[in-house]
Structures are given as C-alpha cells and as structure tokens.
C-alpha cells in the first residue's frame, strides 16, 4: 500500500521534473522569446489558430449532431450501418491529405483550412452522438413512450440529456484533434501557430519551434480541460455517473 503510493508519487514527480527541466532548458535558451519579442505576430497567429478551430468545430457540430440524431431515428436506422462505415473509412484518410486536397476545390488560405478541419471534425462528433443515443437503455425509451411523451419530448428530455456525456466526449475529441490539425494549416496558407512550428522545423530554429509548439499544445490541453469542465455543467448530474461507469 505504502510502496504503491510511493511508486505513484515517484512517477508523478519524475514527470513533473521532466516538464520542469524542459521548460527551464527552453527558457534558459530563450526559446520562448518570440512570443514576447514578436508578440504582435504571435497574437495574429494565435487568433488565426483559434478561429480556425472554433469556426470549423462549430460548423461540424451543426452538421454532425443533427445527422447523428437523424440516423438513429427508426426511419433511418437501416442506413446507420452504411453511414457509420463510410465515416470510419473517411477517418483513415490523413488530415494532411484532406487539407491538401481541398486546395483543388477551394484554393489556398484560411477558408480552405476551415473547410478541411470542418470535414475532419464531423466524424468524431457524429460517431459519439450515434453511440450515445444508441447506448440509452431501451427501457427508458419504453417508459417515456408509455408515459405519453411525444417523440420530440423523448428526444429532448430523455435521449439528449442522457447521451450528453458521450456527445461532449465526441466534441472534445474533435476539438483537440482540430487544434493539432490546424497546426498543419500553414502548409496551405491557412495561418495559425503552425506557421511558427514549420518555421522552426525548416529553419531549425528552436525559438520559433517552441514558441509555436508549446502554445499549441497548451491550447489543446486547455481546450480538453475546459470541455471536461463543461461536462459538469451540461451533463445532468444523475446521468454523469451512469455514463462514467461504462
């Protein structure tokens, strides 16, 4: 018992130490300097990055959530297999390729990047929406029907609240993935912090690299954290536990 705690603590501290060593090394070598010395560019890139992510994620949500709801309605149930498989296949196409191929359709730049990211984010949201709605105990739907609830009442009062956890997890996956993929937007002229990462890689300039990579990473971790916190607000208290048990 004590030795287990000890091992756990050793692990925690070594990770912490590693992170600290990294940051000390980076700060000592002034690798974060561009953030401060060229803060106007940094802010432009950061803003671009966030817009890429927010706009594409919102678009994806607007499409994927209703699509997930629709496909789980009895009328369209039969199509679920097909749609899910196509969606899974689409997932194997590398994100970089999706970005690249969009050039032929939309040209170069921010809009193209947004569109590619949007396409790429649809899948996790769609898949988790479907999984969430599917995993609801059929007895609950039965009970709701038996109480004389109309289909839309069942959807909004029973199905969505109880699959909120899963749907949010999908959104979280999509956003985190999106933040990473948006770093590739540089390649097609979409802007974002990827510009500095690529500058760093191509010029072998650790300053650019770390001034780009670390903020992107922190952005992803922060978004993940924020969306987890959002769970506590959006997912009803009663179904949170049930969802986590799964």
């Amino acid at each position, binding site marked *: 018992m004590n030795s*287990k705690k000890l091992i756990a603590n050793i692990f925690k501290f070594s990770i912490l130490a590693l992170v600290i060593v990294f940051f000390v090394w980076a700060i000592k070598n002034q690798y974060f300097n561009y953030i401060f010395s060229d803060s106007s560019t940094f802010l432009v890139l950061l803003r671009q990055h966030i817009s890429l992510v927010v706009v594409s994620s919102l678009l994806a949500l607007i499409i994927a959530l209703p699509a997930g709801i629709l496909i789980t309605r009895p009328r369209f149930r039969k199509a679920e297999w097909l749609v899910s498989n196509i969606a899974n296949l689409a997932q194997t196409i*590398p994100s970089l*390729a999706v970005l690249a*191929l969009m050039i032929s359709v939309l040209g170069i730049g921010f809009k193209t990047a947004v569109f590619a990211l949007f396409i790429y984010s649809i899948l996790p949201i769609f898949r988790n929406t479907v999984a969430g709605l599917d995993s609801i105990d059929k007895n609950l739907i039965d009970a709701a029907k038996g109480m004389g609830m109309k289909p839309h009442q069942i959807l909004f009062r029973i199905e969505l609240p109880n699959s909120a956890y899963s749907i949010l997890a999908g959104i979280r996956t999509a956003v985190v993935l999106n933040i990473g993929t948006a770093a590739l937007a540089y390649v097609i002229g979409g802007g974002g912090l990827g510009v500095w990462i690529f500058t760093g890689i191509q010029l072998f300039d650790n300053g650019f690299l*770390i001034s780009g990579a*670390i903020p992107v*990473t922190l952005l992803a971790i922060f978004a993940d954290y924020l969306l987890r916190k959002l769970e506590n607000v959006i997912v009803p208290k009663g179904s949170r536990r049930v969802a986590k048990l799964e």
Partner: protein
Amino acid sequence: MEKWLRFLEVNAPRILELTIDHAVLVTLAIIVALLIGVPLGIYLTTNEYLAGSVLQVASITLTIPSIALFGVMIPIFSLINQGIGFLPAFVALVLYSQLPIIRNTYTAIKNVNPEMRDAAIGMGMKTHQRLLRVEIPNALPVIMAGVRTAVVLNIGIGVIAAYIGAGGLGVLITQGISRGDNYLIISGSIAVALLAIIADAILLMIQKRFTTKGLVE
C-alpha cells in the same frame, strides 16, 4: 484514368517502397509500445494511485498536436545528433500509442468480472496463472481494440513524420503539396488509408484467431 495508369506505371515502385517504410516505422513503434503499454496496463490494475496519474499523463500526451511533438523532438534528439529521421518519429509514435494501449489493457483487465477473478483465486491459481489463463484471454478483445486504435492513429500521424525526414507515405503527400501534384497527394492518401484498413483487418484477424470462441457473443 489513363493519366492515372501512366502515373502508377512510373511511381508504383516508389509508392510501394514508401509504404513499406511507413509500415515498418509504425510496426516497430507499436511493438515497442506494446512491450511497454501492456505490462504497464496490467501493473496499473494493482496500483490505483499510479493508474490515475499514468493515464492522465498518457491522455495529455495524446492531446499534443502531432506536428508540435515531432517538432519538439528535433531539438531534443539533436542533443544526441539524431534530430531528424527515424528515431524522433519512432519515439513520438511510441508516445502516441501509449494511451490507447495502456488504457485499454487497464480497463480490460479491470473489467474482468470480479467474480471470475474470485473464482480463479479461490481455485488456487497463482497470480501469473490467473493472468495468463483467465484475465488476459478475457481482456484480449479490449486490449486488441486499443492496439487497433493505436495502429490506425499511428498510420495517420506517421504522415506528419515526413516533415522531420522520417520518410514514409507522408513524403508523397508533402511533395504533392509542394509541387501541386494531386496525383501524389491522392495516391499517398489512398496508400495510407489502405494501409490503415489492411492493418486493422489483419489485427482483427489476429484478435479473432487468439480470442477463443467462448468470447464471441
């Protein structure tokens, strides 16, 4: 179509070569990830304290954008003069594989019906007998699901490794972008997708082969 045939005629050997490079990189990374992740996942089931922090760290690792992680590998590995190429890419892929493998191993072993575990202990099985005969066989489908996730993930992320000189199918796509050549991009993407689908199918086959019939519901 004709253009495609001509393209493939010229480029097929190169595509194949890059596909093999890609597969080798991912396979080696997964093997090492398995050697680390599975024992660790199993060990974590016996140490709740550690499980919490390891899984948290692994899940944060997975949120690190791939280009950022590959990028950061360059200065770090430059310290041992291996800043670009295979090694940094390999290490990054091993890191990315940890979460799915550790988490699935951990939850799979953890979720083995406690009564089954009890029965095994009650019958006088030793810890390793219990692990090998009861817990791992019953956890295998879930562990394999984790491996499959990791493989498909890595095949996709491996594309980005082209930016740090690790070769693989990413070369086709990045050159396709540089040269505005959609044939390269598309053939690269299809090769990546096929690789992922085939790898997944092979792993599924392995999983079925090693999962006794008793677990097929």
